[in-house]
């Protein structure tokens, strides 16, 4: 394959995958939702879960985006330093968004700051968002595609605590956000918490925490313990589906961390709604691909 054909191939793959992951939820999310649905016994909670599962079946059958809010498309890239199209990736992803917007179709969600105009293409200043990590000695690229609607982006926030407030301060903050903003963010929610020494690091980590498979645990035993404690505690509050109350609140709680400054503890929260549209794809140097988030799917 010459370079031009490779670019075309990757653009096609990413166009199709960007459209696809807005229509079908990843396997781990569906498994978790089935598990939570089983536990609900009230009329309203059952009505909502019935609608959710009917909706996913209809989205599949009619081949349409399962939620109308297909977000501002974000790509979190782990690129092999030796991936042959490294210089072209940014442009390929932009073109994939332009094309997926038309063919999926996706909602027009890019509003230019100050001009206050919707571009109508889902592209705009720094959009689609591309976040980069370079993986040494690798020839492939792994791309996390994420669509967050406005509803579950609204709780997103962070603050920098003084060390005196400790991890206790983090817990209090998470619960305050969840019982205020979380209620309206289409529970059951996936909660991503970033802990670091400054706010922008914490914020990025809180988003990356949402890309971990549901139920995976922080590498540090105390981190894992804190995830489990917060998850159990939030579920005891019982936001239920759509905040209408029920047996659970969350599909999971994930913490990602970076070493902090001795004087600061920054905490940030990102949330994913029940329709957590996350897709992971690996593209190899020959442009063959494997979808990691949705098993057995070819585009």
């Amino acid at each position: 394959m010459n370079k031009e054909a490779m670019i075309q191939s990757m653009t096609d793959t990413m166009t199709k995958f960007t459209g696809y992951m807005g229509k079908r939820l990843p396997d781990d999310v569906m498994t978790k939702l089935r598990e939570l649905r089983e536990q609900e016994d009230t009329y309203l909670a059952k009505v909502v879960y019935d609608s959710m599962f009917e909706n996913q079946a209809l989205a599949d059958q009619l081949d349409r985006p399962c939620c109308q809010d297909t977000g501002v498309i974000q790509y979190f890239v782990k690129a092999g330093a030796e991936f042959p199209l490294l210089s072209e990736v940014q442009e390929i992803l932009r073109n994939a968004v332009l094309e997926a917007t038309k063919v999926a179709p996706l909602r027009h969600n890019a509003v230019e700051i100050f001009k206050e105009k919707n571009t109508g293409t889902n592209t705009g200043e720094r959009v689609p968002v591309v976040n980069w990590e370079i993986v040494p000695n690798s020839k492939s690229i792994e791309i996390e595609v994420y669509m967050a609607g406005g509803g579950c982006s609204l709780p997103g926030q962070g603050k920098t605590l003084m060390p005196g407030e400790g991890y206790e301060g983090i817990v209090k903050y998470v619960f305050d956000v969840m019982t205020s903003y979380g209620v309206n963010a289409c529970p059951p929610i996936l909660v991503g918490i970033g802990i670091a020494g400054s706010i922008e690091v914490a914020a990025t980590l809180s988003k990356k925490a949402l890309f971990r498979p549901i139920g995976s645990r922080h590498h540090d035993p105390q981190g894992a313990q804190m995830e489990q404690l917060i998850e159990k505690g939030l579920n005891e509050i019982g936001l239920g589906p759509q905040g209408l109350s029920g047996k659970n609140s969350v599909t999971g709680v994930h913490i990602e961390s970076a070493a902090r400054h001795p004087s600061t503890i920054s905490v940030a929260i990102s949330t994913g709604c029940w329709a957590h549209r996350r897709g992971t794809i690996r593209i190899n140097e020959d442009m063959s691909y494997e979808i990691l988030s949705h098993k057995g799917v070819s585009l």
Partner: protein
Amino acid sequence: MKKVLTTPIQNEDLENITVGDVVYLDGYLITCRDVAHRRLIELGRELPVDLNGLAIFHAGPIVAKDDDGKWQMISIGPTTSMRMEKFEKEFIKQTGVKLIIGKGGMGPETVEGCKNDKALHAVFPGGCAVLAATEVEEIERVEWQDLGMPESLWVSRVKNFGPLIISIDTKGNNLFEQNKAVFNEKKTAIVEDICKQVKFIK
């Protein structure tokens, strides 16, 4: 028995409906969200649709034109209603809208508006946008297209549109506020208990 509201909705139709009830809508549903509210209330611009007795949907859909150039509803779920809280009371008063459909709860101002001018706020299950789209019979017209796809006013005829879970009724009840009180009551003890177990700074 399945409770159905049909537009134009009369005040009497709403009297016996209480928070937590599930209803369905037949008739006209117009999408109306952030900028449309701002234009009417803050900028004093007249809405291009007469909403008296009708229903609005806090929603920004995905639409597409079919081969005949006619708009088709592809995917339309509710957006967060709380964003419209600062406008809704006055909006209800000025427009005579009777049913506001969205996602999540709304606040005390909307409760007051619903009580004074007889209207309801209801939740369509968030994220269930294809389900909602299949309950739209036809997009009759679209206004204020300069706002872009999500913010335009899409005037649709719907049939059996729901489930709609009543979150604010005409009697001053607010389901989400009731729920939030319960959530907050439970929260204090739970947080205290967790805090004892995360004293990692020693």
